[in-house]
């Protein structure tokens, strides 16, 4: 990482070699620069030094004066005139390290053959490099009940623990969730939870990854594989727009685990539990295994690719077709849809927003969001961060970690525009306000993180588009949206951010694509496409790529019923159940591609699994086949070709699209037991990519209705009592949680067990409901 200020450099001598490092560098890391590996357990570059395990002892001398005892190299920064002797050159350091290793092993069980960590275990490895071949300990080893579940997804084997405190320090310092702590003391010290409160942190999996022994293991991976049987591929996370680098470990064509990858400028070395542990959908029994065509009997039957493609082509030819693109399409696939819509179908009726959306938002995306360049490093440098209808812990967890890091490090000021103070905003010491107008102290160094739910507040994105002081970033919840926007998978914007309404922009693309013309009218939005399907003179076919209609509206699925539907899907779904043709597409592990994270940064990945489902292929390739069949080719036979072509188009440098200019709507007034609904999706919920992940689901935050104390009193309920929330479409009975929320509002999780607002109420935000005691 580069910094703006020149850093003072210091030269030290380690084992006779000079090395020059920035001031503040710890000895252990200066040694790494020389390729000298000092053994260690508690040391972790992203955690505050602990000096606890004492494995990294070295001899240190400053200005000719030697420390009388060996020092922990993980706690001492280099200084001028420092001479360090590691185990390589100091017999004292070497004996000290061997002595510590012996002490670490006296109480360590010899269960390496059945331990998940075996084969990739720092203790095992360093016992080989630094340990004795035979133990001198003839006494009785310390034993604990093994293992204990500290959450539904993490198990703790206290016998294996070396008390390095990496896990507890991570939980406190990085995640802000000190749900696991060191308990007891001395030889009985152990990691633990409070008996009634499990380790339900959204980031708990990182502790499994950084545990230097097999003390913390993941329930889903436990006893499943040996590390040396796994093939690892660097990948990117498909769940959200945070942009985590991942490592996917595969054995015999099956993903067995995913780890956080290292990317100092994005996710550092962390990820969230959803990114780590929600991947069973990849190998689900529900995967669509071959193309399916609906027969005259109304049933889907397997078909060959040529037959299916021919059926699609005939079904779409001559029709007015809309294109719905899922929010987790790769950039390349989204580009395929974008070009397919314009070139093959001759329409701008394409939208990647399978969620509540507005025309105001489309204008904001085309005019503003598509050009944004704010990055994680702007958060690092910000004087004030505003969370605008954005709950980072739930909606982009790595953004949360980055903001939290700055809050801890330098008390970064955070304001959240939210209905109430969530656990996440409490950890950020955020000032809670209810509207953007109430945010003060914005400077050119401030960063406003605009959540996708801002679209649900009429007039807000217009205000943001017009804002000129602070830096603006738009953070969609899903991984594919920023890339789909860049690829033009939206009705009013062409690839590279070119406005559809701009003739020059169209000519750019027209000539690049070698077509005579492009549709000139901005296309329909997702909801307009859906409603048009059933209206006179409207659309009469639709291509649906990875969309769950329940995410859009209560009516969406019904709107797909009486029309020609082509579904590109990985697994059987509500859409495949009614589709005329189902085309199986490759999941992220089965194809190469890239996402753009919320920053607009490319997150590319290679194919991790080969030949798992031989029939599946990337969306863009399938679309290219259909286009060929329809004789309006898009000529994108591969991910690589799509990527290349999109890159060659470059970014639009002409006039931006018109900004939205929608006025604020008048506040809704409520009376009696009425309330205005507000909701968002919690990180761990009923999202389709989390299907089958029971261990993960066990750590979900409980679904509750958040109401104010005044409302609770007026309807006669206390914390934990059941309330019934209803409107004319449906109702939800759920536990009440009394908090400091506006008396007029009620908050519900948008898509959790027992609380699905869109399908129940037909809306996710802003609608009137009544709240009564259940």
């Amino acid at each position: 990482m580069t910094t703006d200020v020149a850093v003072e450099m210091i030269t030290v001598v380690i084992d006779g070699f000079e090395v020059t490092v920035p001031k503040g560098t710890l000895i252990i890391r200066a040694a790494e620069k020389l390729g000298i590996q000092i053994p260690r357990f508690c040391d972790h570059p992203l955690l505050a030094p602990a000096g606890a395990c004492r494995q990294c002892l070295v001899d240190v001398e400053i200005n000719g004066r030697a420390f009388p005892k060996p020092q922990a190299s993980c706690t001492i920064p280099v200084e001028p005139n420092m001479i360090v002797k590691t185990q390589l050159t100091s017999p004292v350091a070497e004996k000290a390290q061997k002595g510590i290793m012996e002490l670490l092993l006296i109480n360590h069980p010899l269960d390496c053959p059945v331990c998940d960590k075996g084969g990739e275990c720092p203790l095992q490895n360093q016992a080989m490099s630094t340990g004795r071949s035979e133990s001198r300990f003839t006494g009785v080893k310390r034993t604990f009940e093994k293992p204990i579940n500290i959450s539904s997804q993490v198990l703790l084997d206290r016998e294996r623990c070396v008390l390095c405190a990496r896990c507890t320090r991570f939980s406190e310092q990085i995640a802000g969730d000190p749900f696991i702590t060191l308990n007891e003391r001395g030889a009985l010290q152990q990691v633990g939870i409070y008996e009634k409160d499990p380790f339900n942190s959204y980031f708990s999996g990182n502790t499994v990854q950084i545990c230097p022994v097999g003390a913390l293991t993941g329930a889903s991976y436990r006893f499943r594989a040996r590390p040396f049987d796994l093939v690892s591929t660097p990948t990117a996370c498909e769940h959200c727009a945070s942009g985590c680098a991942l490592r996917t470990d595969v054995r015999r064509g099956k993903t067995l685990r995913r780890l956080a990858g290292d990317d100092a400028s994005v996710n550092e070395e962390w990820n969230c539990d959803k990114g780590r542990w929600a991947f069973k959908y990849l190998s689900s029994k529900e995967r669509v295994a071959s193309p399916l065509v609906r027969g005259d009997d109304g049933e889907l039957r397997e078909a060959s690719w040529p037959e299916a493609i021919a059926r699609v082509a005939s079904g779409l030819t001559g029709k007015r077709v809309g294109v719905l693109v899922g929010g987790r399409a790769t950039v390349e696939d989204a580009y395929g849809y974008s070009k397919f819509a314009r070139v093959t179908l001759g329409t701008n009726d394409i939208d990647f927003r399978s969620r509540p959306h507005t025309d105001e938002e489309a204008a904001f995306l085309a005019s503003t969001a598509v050009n944004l360049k704010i990055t994680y490093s702007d958060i690092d440098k910000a004087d004030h961060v505003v969370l605008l209808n954005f709950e980072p812990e739930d909606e982009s967890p790595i953004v949360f970690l980055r903001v939290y890091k700055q809050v801890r490090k330098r008390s970064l000021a955070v304001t959240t525009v939210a209905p109430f103070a969530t656990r996440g905003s409490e950890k950020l010491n955020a000032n809670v306000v209810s509207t953007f107008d109430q945010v003060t102290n914005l400077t050119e160094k401030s960063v406003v993180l605009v959540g996708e739910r801002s679209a649900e507040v009429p007039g807000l994105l217009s205000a943001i588009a017009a804002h000129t002081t602070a830096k603006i970033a738009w953070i969609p919840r899903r991984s594919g949206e920023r890339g789909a926007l860049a690829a033009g998978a939206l009705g009013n914007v062409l690839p590279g951010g070119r406005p559809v309404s701009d003739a020059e922009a169209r000519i750019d693309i027209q000539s690049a694509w070698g077509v005579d013309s492009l549709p000139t009218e901005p296309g329909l939005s997702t909801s307009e496409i859906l409603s048009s399907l059933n209206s006179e003179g409207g659309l009469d076919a639709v291509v649906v790529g990875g969309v769950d209609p329940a995410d859009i509206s209560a009516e969406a699925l019904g709107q797909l019923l009486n029309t020609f539907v082509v579904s590109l899907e990985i697994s059987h779904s509500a859409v495949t159940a009614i589709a005329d043709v189902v085309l199986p597409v490759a999941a992220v592990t089965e194809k190469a591609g890239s996402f753009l994270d919320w920053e607009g940064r490319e997150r590319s990945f290679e194919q991790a699994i080969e030949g798992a489902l031989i029939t599946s292929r990337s969306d863009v390739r399938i679309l290219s086949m259909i286009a060929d069949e329809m004789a309006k080719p898009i000529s994108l036979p591969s991910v690589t070709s799509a990527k290349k072509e999109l890159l060659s188009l470059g970014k639009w440098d002409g006039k931006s699209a018109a900004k939205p200019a929608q006025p604020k709507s008048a506040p809704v007034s409520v009376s009696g037991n009425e309330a205005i609904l507000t909701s968002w999706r919690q990180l761990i919920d009923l999202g389709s990519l989390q299907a089958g992940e029971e261990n993960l689901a066990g750590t979900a935050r409980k679904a509750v209705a958040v109401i104010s104390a005044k409302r609770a009193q007026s309807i006669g309920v206390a914390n934990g009592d059941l309330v019934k929330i209803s409107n004319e479409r449906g109702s939800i009975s759920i536990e009440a949680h009394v908090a400091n929320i506006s008396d007029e509002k009620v908050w519900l999780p948008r898509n959790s067990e027992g609380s699905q607002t869109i399908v129940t109420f037909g809306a996710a935000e802003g609608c009137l409901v009544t709240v009564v005691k259940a």
Partner: protein
Amino acid sequence: MSKLSPVLSAHWDEADSFTIDGYRRNGGYNAAKTALDMDADAVIQLVKDSGLRGRGGAGFPTGMKWGFIPQNDGKDHYLVVNADESEPGTCKDMPLLMANPHSLIEGIIIASYAIRANYAFIYLRGEVVHVYRRVQQAIQDAYAAGLLGKNINGKGFDLELVLHAGAGAYICGEETALLDSLEGFRGQPRLRPPFPAIAGLYARPTVVNNVESIASVPAIIANGVEWFQAMGTEKSKGFTLYSLSGHVKNPGQFEAPLGITLRELLEMAGGMRDGHELKFWTPGGSSTPMFTQEHLDVPLDYEGVGAAGSMLGTKALQIFDETTCVVRAVLRWTEFYKHESCGKCTPCREGTWWLVQALKELEAGRGTSADLDKLLDIVDNIAGRSFCALADGAASPIVSSMKHFRAEYQRHLDLGSCPFDPIASTLFAGVHS
């Protein structure tokens, strides 16, 4: 003339010595008045000039510690008194606080004024309820008398004093562990730097001093530097409390100038109990390497004890006669260190665990001479390798006993059992059936 110099203990024989009236009757709180009339820096200088050194074990010059506090830094400063007296053998601060708590409070007023602290804490070990009562009452009375709180003595100096009970953790006598404990965390030592003088309690400049060190300050202010310097030795000035315990005829507290010898103290204690002779003793608690008869004439000051291979420590002289099995004594101390290890670092946590097992074997007479060498090698891998000094303390009794009494360890192994009768060393030996 007496070799003793009771100052802190001068009035412990008065029935109301612990009350504010009793304290004032003997001139109490005059020194605070004097100090508050002085420039704060002058108070620090006076304490520096006196040569007062920390009475908690390390012997660091008290005035110098105060001088490390950055002044005019706009931050809150804190004074924290370490009353967590838990080092085995150490029993001076508890009787001092029970009989004369106001000397500490007066010292706190003076020290806080000097370092510009408006908040002070007494971290008292929790296992001494009656001492807690006495200190608590003394604080209440001092507040009532206008000696604590706002605008003390009308001099514009404010001081809040909070008494805080520990809850059973020897490690909290280590100053950074004490600060973590006082902040509401587990009492585990902190990384240094930063040192408490820069970032102590709540990350603010903090002085941590032992009870006796602070309680000694009023007498120095009242009687002057020369008076104080007239006592003691060249580099170990003044008076201090020596605590004799164990197999002496009359154990107790002896306040004397630094540099007195055990021979002199033993004489005052009436000698060893009848019919027995000195075998080994600790000069300053169990963490200080043990001495034997050879060391009867070592001057008990910081330099003298150091030169003889141990440390003055807390001047807790635990005396053991020839009926005592040194292996048993060492095992028991080792069990103590194991019990009190905070668990943070490997050598202390795992090492004390192993040492207890090893010593149990040896005490039972199981093992060979090679196991004695192994014991010393394990100790070598623990001492000087740990996060704080607790493990060094744990090593002391083992190393020093092996130095002086290796033959006795060997005798256990030769016999296959402990050669000592534990009843013979009890206070009620011969009385109790």
